């Protein structure tokens, strides 16, 4: 029997290695897999590169991973959000690398990695400082930048419901980056509010099909 259910966030992240590339879903607090991030932070994993849209808020989740010194590099579009004081301190002290990527380019680079596309061209950021060092190529009279795929070792995502095969559904705007990150890593770990019986999720409405998910853990969220 296929059973991807894990008993705890600790168990689910127990073998994440130092130096991993970790994709993390969420947009600000909404959809951030906070309990999985906390479990990683408690393990004091080191030298992670994390790919996520923001830099965490407050002292839980991504913010806690930063505070615990787990993160060597942050790839994101917008590290400045209210409450992201930890990141700013590390950044000003030169203790963390930052790669700023336009929000849609993060999503597209991760999707490309998920789709076996090593590189693609996009207009976004052409002619701006974020184009520095990137190949420029003309198609049909317009110039585009070449962007490389991002592939994660691990993805941490948050869903509303999940089943033992790994199917996930979300709710409202907590969906955001979660299904994208879920496709983008060798090992995808999902925290959900509720584990449901196999077959309970309608095949028409599953957003992240089982194939992308390796582990599912039901957590009691702090801010449920």
């Amino acid at each position: 029997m296929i059973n991807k259910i894990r008993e705890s966030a600790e168990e689910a992240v127990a073998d994440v290695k130092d130096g991993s590339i970790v994709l993390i879903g969420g947009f600000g607090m909404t959809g951030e897999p906070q309990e999985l991030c906390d479990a990683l932070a408690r393990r004091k994993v080191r030298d992670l590169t994390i790919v996520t849209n923001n830099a965490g808020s407050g002292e839980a989740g991504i913010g806690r991973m930063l505070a615990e010194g787990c993160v060597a590099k942050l790839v994101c579009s917008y590290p400045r959000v209210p409450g992201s004081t930890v990141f700013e301190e590390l950044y000003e002290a030169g203790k963390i690398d930052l790669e700023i990527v336009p929000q849609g380019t993060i999503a597209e680079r991760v999707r490309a990695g998920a789709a076996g596309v090593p590189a693609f061209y996009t207009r976004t950021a052409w002619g701006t400082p974020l184009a520095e060092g990137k190949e420029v190529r003309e198609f049909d009279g317009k110039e585009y930048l070449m962007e490389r795929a991002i592939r994660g070792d691990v993805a941490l995502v948050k869903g509303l419901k999940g089943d033992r095969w790994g199917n996930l559904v979300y709710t409202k705007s907590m969906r955001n980056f979660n299904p994208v990150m879920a496709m983008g890593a060798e090992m995808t770990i999902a925290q959900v509010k509720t584990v449901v019986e196999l077959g309970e999720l309608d095949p028409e409405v599953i957003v992240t099909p089982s194939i992308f998910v390796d582990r599912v853990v039901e957590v009691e969220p702090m801010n449920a």
Partner: protein
Amino acid sequence: MTQPLNRLQMAWRCAHDIPEGSVVNLGVGIPLAVLDQTPDDREIIFHSENGILGMKALDPGDPEDPELVNAGKRPVKMNPGGAFFHHADSFLMVRGGHLDYTVLGAYEVAENGDLANWRLPNSKTAPAVGGAMDLAYGAKQVYVICDHNSKDGSPKIVKKTELPLTGRECVSRVFTDIAVIDRTPDGMVVREMIDGMTFDELQDRTGATLRLANDWKPLEAPDLDS
């Protein structure tokens, strides 16, 4: 001379120019106020880059749902006909040219339409771009809402930008506190300016070379508390 528009009035004036049926993305900051200033009888589909089409401003007393927020991470609600999707699909909409309008803030707009809105010079804080660069090239029309001048009086509509760019030649219209200005193939054309202001006064407060439209009108907005 009429008072310059406040932020809500600028948002109201911008909302006024967005026709029924448009799909519109609103940047963080003043542009998000367009959501509240859209006439109730006008059906507009608002896109939020975090995976929403059909969002709507909360009415006073509406419950706030932390799982239903806009790109500024503030709570919203949904119109009938709205839909949720993930970030890759959301930015496919943005980058594939599917949005009719985006409304963005600006530090500088150049007379060729160059936009700078993400990074101030000599900033010690970490850079942050969000979805601005995606939107600048993605939407069919890029509208900008910004004060006409910075607090130190320097113009935001300039001959040539000095700040790090968000996108080149992308801005189509600018709504400021004192004027509405189109970027056209022939340069910057003033469509509206506040009552009592002369064209010379407006030009003095502007870095770019302006031209006054033959059919220019006074810039007006209802009283709105900002």
